Each structure stands twice: as structure tokens, then as C-alpha cells.
């Protein structure tokens, strides 16, 4: 339930035992390897060896094959398959059994040649299409394309002219000389495709006209056949390519059955590479290897005994961290607190000498979540969905926390909703009878009011209210606002108090009393004074309270300037310290969002119900439309407000609560372990 204490150790092993020891360390996953720092004399840093590079190559090849084949994988359908994704579940022995003997090189080679061919075919299709496009307008030419386009005295040109310029262009050409023949004009879309024959002598003049009109000169490819023949040949080739592509796809789909093996093998070699990569942080002599790293204090003894089974040639010593080096941070929370760690994780980790906020934020987070959503039916739905997801689907351990958290949150939302009378925003008159009761006045009589019925007559009706309802946010928003601010004050006060207690216990007692206690006292007195003023505590206490409050303020002024040297500066920064009150005030006001978010949920629900009521008046299809509106509308409402409640409740923890006692920014504990991309070992 806390930040786990860490110890830096050094581990000296014999060179010969290195592979065994590293495999062992990776399997246990207890030691975060740290940089060796300054080398002692006679020591040298280890470099990556030949085997490491080989492993890197293997992994790259396997990765290629996996990426290539997964495009052709037949995905299983259903929720479970979606959750599992690419992961493979097995134990280490099974994994080793698959990976050790698997001749993946053959498969990788085939994948490579297949990819090559596929790319070539694709490029060929592209070039065929462009040739087709070029040839299409010239289908009327009946000669072979590689026929020479010039004779001794004349030249043949192919041009495409924009239709709007055509007549002008033609006129100018004809005007040039009689030695120009213009072929049959072919109009496609808004271009004219035409062949021009001219004397070589006037070629320059012709090209001059072509250039002034910005006419495109077409170079037809020098192919053997006539255009018609060539086009036909291309179509046949396209068909052939299509068939071949189909074959290749089929083979790829067939090969994709090997994906599981490939993935397992990828992880198997990747783990071995991970063992190799850490060696750059080691120091070595001729016969020994020195490793430094961080380990949880509890695991040191376990490591010593377990390592004995592997080898007896090792020394473990506890050492001091380098200057400026911070221990990595690992938070451990058990049982009901565990899911809340996913909230802390969003913010980041505390520093190693700070406390783990998880257990403290848990109750506030879940309470604020419930208040921001406040609908019993929505809460129940969320609980039911999350519960069945956990019950009927196999969720990977690392994603379970959030789902469990939302399950608890659904339950709390149910209770909050019942207290607020939020049942999918129904009015008591729309709700089923078992949820409501008649309102009684002080003498136990039923309260009635006058309403108009459908026929327009005014009739007497019994006033109904929801059972369990204690607050009505729409009729008396002020009471909810006060409740929100009160909860905010409590959380801020708890934060300040925690800060004081932590500093008092773990850092200087004196400075904790001087720096932090005055704030605890002053905030407490402010709370006390508000309670007196609001009539919760007897009015007669006000005189004493006032004096105690002033003492608190004087305390702040006297203590908060401690670090200044000059007495006047001390006084000034003491007075400025009081300004901190504004900060606390704005923190508390920030909790008013709880009212707003709760209102948003109930009003969107109200809007949905009203719209559904309106469409239900449409003859025949009204009921069906109303049901659709209700389902879609309320699902939308749950979705948007469940997300909003999570973010805003989280924000209240991060911004208003954490800042009172935590700096944050701790580095996560990352031990050498079997980090896998696909394999889920013993999950």
C-alpha cells in the first residue's frame, strides 16, 4: 500500500556464469539494471558481441514476416478475439518448445519473395494503366506503333489540342503551308486528338504553332503491334496478373497460419536480445562481471537464496546511489485499492521519498465520480456491463484495473443516483410504482396538488416523490453546491493535513511544525468558523472562534517568511503567505463542477425523455421511434457523462488534491524482465 522501498546493489559474478545469471535475472524480473558509472582500474565496459547483432538481424527478419503475414490473417470474430488481438497465451516451456526448433528462415524467405512479386505486379499494373490511358485516344490508327514516324521528306506528329482552341489552331496550321495534312480528328471529353503530317522543311514552323497554342505533343510508345492489338495484349496481361495476385493472396492466407509460431519465436529471440542489450551497462574484468542495479529491499534475500541454486560464484553488496541519482519508484496496492492505481498512473509517480496517494484518492475519486454522474439506472448499467465483461471475457491482467474501477464507480453512482432521485431522468410520475411513494406533510397526511389532465380539466393529484431521495438538484441546486464545496474543502484539508503528517514523520519535525502546521490549523479554524456561522455549531462559540481564527492568521504571518533574512522581508512574505488562502479558496470553488456535471446528466436525460414523449404522439410508428430515441439518447448520455465524470473527478485529484502534498515525477521501476510483444506468460 505504498511506495516500495528500494535498495541499490552491486552483483559480482564469474564470466562463465554470465549467461545463466542474466537468464535467471530476466526470468525473475526483480532487478533494474543501472549504469555502472565510473569504472575502477582494470575494468572495461562490455560492448555488444557478435551474437547480439545476429539476434537483432533475426528479430528484424521475424518482424518483417509477422508484419507481412498479419495483413492476410483471417481474424476471428467476437469480443474475446478483439480483446486478445495478436497476443498468444502460453507458458515458457510451450514457448521454448515452439521457438527452439522452428525453422523460420524458410518462411521468411518465402514471405520476402512473395512481397517482391506482389510489389512488382502492382507496379506493372500501374504502368499498364498509364500505357492504356495513352493509347486509348489513338485507337483509330491502324499501323504498328514501331513504324518509323518520319520518311525522307515528311514527319508525322501526334497532338492533343483543347477543344476550344481547335478551330483556331487548325486554321493557323492550314495557313502555314499546303504541305500539311491533318488526319482524322478524334474528340474525347474536351480534347481533340489528331495526327499531323508535314514536310520536314516546315517542321519548325509547325512546332512553333504547337508551342503558341500550348498543345501537347504525344509520344506514343514504340510497340510491335497496332494500337488495337497492343490494347488487347495489355488486357490479357492484366487478367493474368489478376489471377496471379489471387494465387499469391491465397498462399499468403495459408501461410498466415504460421503467424502464431512466428510471433512466439519473435518474442523468444527478443528476450534473448534484451539480455544482451543490458550488458552495455556492465563492467568486466578478465574473469568477472560487475552489475549494478535497483531492487526492492524485500527481494534482496530472496535473490541471494535463489541465485545460490544457479551458481555459488557471486557476491551481492548493498551500495549507495550515485550523487543526484534517485531510486526508481514502484507502487504496490492490494485488494480493493489496486484498481485505483490506474488513476494515479495517469498523473505519474510520486518521488521515492513521497507517499503513495492511491489509497487516499480512492475514496474521493469514486465519490466524486458518483456525484458527477448521479443516475441510479446509469450506475447499475455500468456496474452490470463491467461485471459481465470481467466475468465472461478473459481480460489481460494489465487492463483489468480500469474495468474493475468502472465497476466500483457504477455501484457508487447507483447510490448517488438514488440519493439525488436520478432514475434515467424520469419524473416520479413516469417511474414505476415501487420506486416512488406519496409525499406526506408534517401531520402524516398525503399532500396533493392540482394538475391539468389530458382532457384539459383541472384535477387533484397525489404528490409523489422517489424513495431514498434526499436531494433534488434541479429544485434546490444551492444545497448540492454547498455539498460539493464542503466535500472539496474536506479533500483540500485532508491534503494539507497529509502533507504535514508526512513531513513531520519523515523529514524535519521542526520545519514541519513551522511551515505546514499553521496552515492545518488555519484551515481547520476556517472550517470551524463556517460551521458556527452556518448554525451547525452553537452561535455562542463565535467570540472564541474569532480569536482562534486571528491567532491562525498571525501564525501564518509569523512563520511563512522563515526563509527571508531581513526582518522586514520576513514580515512581508509572511503577509504574502496569507495570500495562499486565495489559492485554497479557488481550489474549493473548483468542486462546484460536481453540481454542474450532475445537472448536465439529468438535463440531457430530461431532454431525451421529452423528445421521446413528443415523437410518441406520431401515429403508428410513434412508439417505435420513441423507444429508439430513448435507447440512443440515454446511451449517448451515459457515454459522454461517464467519460466527463472520469476526467473531471480525476482532475480534482491531480490539480486540487495532489498538489497539496506531492511533487511527483518519480521514475518508474523497470526491472530486466521478459518484455513481450505477443506472448502472455502465465496470465
Amino acid at each position, binding site marked *: 500500500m505504498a511506495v516500495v522501498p528500494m535498495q541499490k546493489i552491486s552483483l559480482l559474478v564469474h564470466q562463465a556464469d554470465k549467461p545463466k545469471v542474466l537468464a535467471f535475472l530476466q526470468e525473475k524480473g526483480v532487478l533494474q539494471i543501472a549504469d555502472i558509472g565510473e569504472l575502477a582500474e582494470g575494468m572495461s565496459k562490455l560492448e555488444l558481441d557478435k551474437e547480439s547483432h545476429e539476434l537483432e538481424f533475426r528479430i528484424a527478419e521475424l518482424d518483417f514476416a509477422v508484419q507481412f503475414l498479419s495483413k492476410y490473417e483471417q481474424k476471428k470474430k467476437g469480443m474475446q478475439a478483439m480483446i486478445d488481438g495478436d497476443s498468444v497465451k502460453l507458458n515458457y516451456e510451450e514457448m521454448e518448445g515452439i521457438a527452439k526448433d522452428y525453422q523460420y528462415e524458410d518462411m521468411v524467405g518465402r514471405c520476402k519473395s512473395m512481397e517482391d512479386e506482389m510489389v512488382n505486379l502492382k507496379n506493372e499494373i500501374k504502368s499498364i494503366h498509364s500505357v492504356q490511358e495513352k493509347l486509348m485516344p489513338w485507337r483509330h490508327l491502324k499501323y504498328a506503333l514501331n513504324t518509323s514516324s518520319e520518311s525522307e521528306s515528311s514527319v508525322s506528329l501526334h497532338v492533343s489540342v483543347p477543344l476550344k482552341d481547335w478551330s483556331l489552331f487548325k486554321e493557323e496550321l492550314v495557313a502555314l503551308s499546303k504541305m500539311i495534312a491533318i488526319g482524322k480528328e478524334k474528340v474525347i471529353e474536351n480534347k481533340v486528338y489528331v495526327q499531323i503530317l508535314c514536310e520536314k522543311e516546315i517542321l519548325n514552323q509547325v512546332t512553333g504553332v504547337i508551342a503558341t497554342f500550348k498543345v501537347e505533343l504525344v509520344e506514343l510508345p514504340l510497340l510491335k503491334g497496332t494500337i488495337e492489338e497492343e490494347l488487347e495484349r495489355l488486357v490479357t496481361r492484366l487478367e493474368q496478373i489478376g489471377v496471379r495476385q489471387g494465387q499469391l493472396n491465397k498462399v499468403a492466407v495459408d501461410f498466415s497460419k504460421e503467424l502464431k509460431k512466428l510471433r512466439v519465436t519473435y518474442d523468444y529471440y527478443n528476450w534473448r536480445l534484451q539480455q544482451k542489450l543490458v550488458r552495455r551497462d556492465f563492467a568486466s574484468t578478465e574473469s568477472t562481471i560487475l552489475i549494478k542495479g535497483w531492487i526492492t529491499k524485500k527481494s534482496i534475500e530472496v535473490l541471494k537464496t535463489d541465485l545460490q541454486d544457479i551458481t555459488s560464484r557471486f557476491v551481492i553488496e548493498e551500495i549507495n546511489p550515485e550523487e543526484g541519482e534517485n531510486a526508481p519508484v514502484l507502487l504496490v496496492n492490494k485488494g480493493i485499492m489496486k484498481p485505483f492505481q490506474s488513476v494515479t*498512473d*495517469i*498523473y*505519474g509517480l510520486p518521488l521515492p521519498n513521497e507517499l503513495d496517494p492511491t489509497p487516499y484518492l480512492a475514496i474521493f475519486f469514486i465519490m466524486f465520480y458518483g456525484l458527477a454522474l448521479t443516475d441510479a439506472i446509469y450506475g447499475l448499467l455500468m456496474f452490470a456491463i463491467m461485471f459481465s465483461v470481467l466475468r465472461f471475457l478473459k481480460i489481460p491482467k494489465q487492463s483489468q484495473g480500469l474495468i474493475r474501477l468502472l465497476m466500483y464507480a457504477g455501484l457508487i453512482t447507483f447510490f448517488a443516483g438514488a440519493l439525488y432521485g436520478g432514475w434515467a431522468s424520469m419524473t416520479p410520475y413516469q417511474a414505476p410504482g415501487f420506486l416512488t411513494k406519496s409525499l406526506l406533510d408534517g401531520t402524516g397526511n398525503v399532500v396533493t396538488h392540482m394538475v391539468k389532465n389530458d382532457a384539459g380539466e383541472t384535477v387533484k393529484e397525489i404528490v409523489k416523490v422517489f424513495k431514498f431521495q434526499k436531494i433534488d438538484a*434541479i429544485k434546490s*441546486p444551492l444545497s448540492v453546491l454547498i455539498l460539493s464545496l464542503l466535500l472539496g474543502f474536506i479533500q483540500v484539508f485532508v491534503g494539507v493535513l497529509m502533507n504535514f503528517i508526512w513531513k513531520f514523520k519523515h523529514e524535519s519535525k521542526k520545519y514541519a511544525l513551522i511551515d505546514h502546521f499553521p496552515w492545518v490549523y488555519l484551515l481547520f479554524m476556517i472550517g470551524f468558523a463556517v460551521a458556527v456561522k452556518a448554525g451547525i455549531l452553537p452561535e455562542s462559540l463565535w467570540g472564541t472562534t474569532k480569536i482562534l481564527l486571528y491567532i491562525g492568521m498571525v501564525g501564518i504571518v509569523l512563520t511563512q517568511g522563515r526563509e527571508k533574512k531581513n526582518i522586514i522581508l520576513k514580515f512581508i512574505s509572511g503577509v504574502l503567505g496569507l495570500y495562499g488562502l486565495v489559492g485554497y479558496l479557488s481550489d474549493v470553488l*473548483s468542486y*462546484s*463542477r460536481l*453540481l*454542474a*456535471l450532475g*445537472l*448536465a446528466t439529468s*438535463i*440531457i436525460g*430530461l*431532454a431525451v425523455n*421529452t423528445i421521446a414523449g413528443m415523437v410518441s404522439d406520431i401515429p403508428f410508428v410513434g412508439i417505435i421511434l420513441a423507444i429508439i430515441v430513448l435507447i440512443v439518447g440515454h446511451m449517448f448520455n451515459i457515454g*459522454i457523462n461517464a*467519460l*466527463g465524470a472520469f*476526467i*473531471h473527478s*480525476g*482532475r480534482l485529484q*491531480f*490539480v486540487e488534491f495532489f498538489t497539496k502534498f506531492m511533487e511527483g515525477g518519480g521514475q518508474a521501476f523497470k526491472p530486466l524482465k521478459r518484455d513481450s510483444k505477443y506472448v502472455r506468460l502465465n496470465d
Partner: protein
Amino acid sequence: MDEVVTNPGLWGLALAVAGAAFAVAFSGAGSSIGVSYAGQAGAGVVAEKPELFGKVLILEALPATQGIYGFLVAFLILMFTGILSGDPIALTTADGAKIFFAGIPVGLAGYFSGIYQGKVSAAGCGMVAKNPGDMGKAMVLSAMVETYAVLGFLVSALVVFSIA
């Protein structure tokens, strides 16, 4: 038209409708601009990493809340003034003006916060593209801007409640 000019009750109602229109129009405009910023950045991320679509969609949806708050205030105004049920209540010009002013906080706060939240969300898309694990942080950064729309909504809703 003559009736509207001569009957002060209808002037009140007209002002109330103007308030509802202001609330929904401005907050909706802000949200749509904001969502479009986030959506453009998100499209870039999804082009590179299609598997992040879900996360990007959530980030894009965050600046959409302002429009909803504006709609809610408009809805409350239309409901409390009886326009929704087709049986409008009589409002003095002063009451109508009060309701009109109720539409301003959510309308303006929603307009500006919607746009700026969209920018933060767009930047958040970049964060998520680099490290999908930073999703929570990106959402919280974006939600910081939304605070002021929430407060605007709160004040608008409280004023509208006061006429009921």
C-alpha cells in the same frame, strides 16, 4: 406583429427565446471549431497509426461538450417558459431580459473555451501519437480548459432555475 409590440408579455418571451438561441448558437459554434481542430490533428495521427482511432476520437469529442451545455441551457429555457409544450407562460420584459442574460455565460464561455480546448486536444493527439500511454494526461490537459465552460453552464443553469 402589432400584438408583439403592444403586449409586453410577448416581448419577455421573445427575449427569452433570444437567450436560448444565444446559448446554443455560440457554444455550438465554439464546439464545432474546437472539434474540427482536434479532428484535423487526429486524422493525421490515424493516417499513421490506425489503431489509435479510438483514443483520437475521445480527444476529438472533448471540446464537443460546450455545444451540449449550450443546448441544455436552451432546452431548460424553452421548457421553463413553456415554449416546448406549446403553452408559453407570460413573462414581463424584465423577466425575459433576465433569461436572455442567462444565455450569455454558457454561450460566450462555451464559444471561447470550445475553440481553445480544441487546440489543446489537437496537441494531445500529438502526445498520444508518440506514446499512447499518455492518453490520460492528454485528456486532463484538455479538460483544464473545459472548466470554464462548466462554470458558465453552472451560472446559466442556476439563473434559469431561479425563474421556475
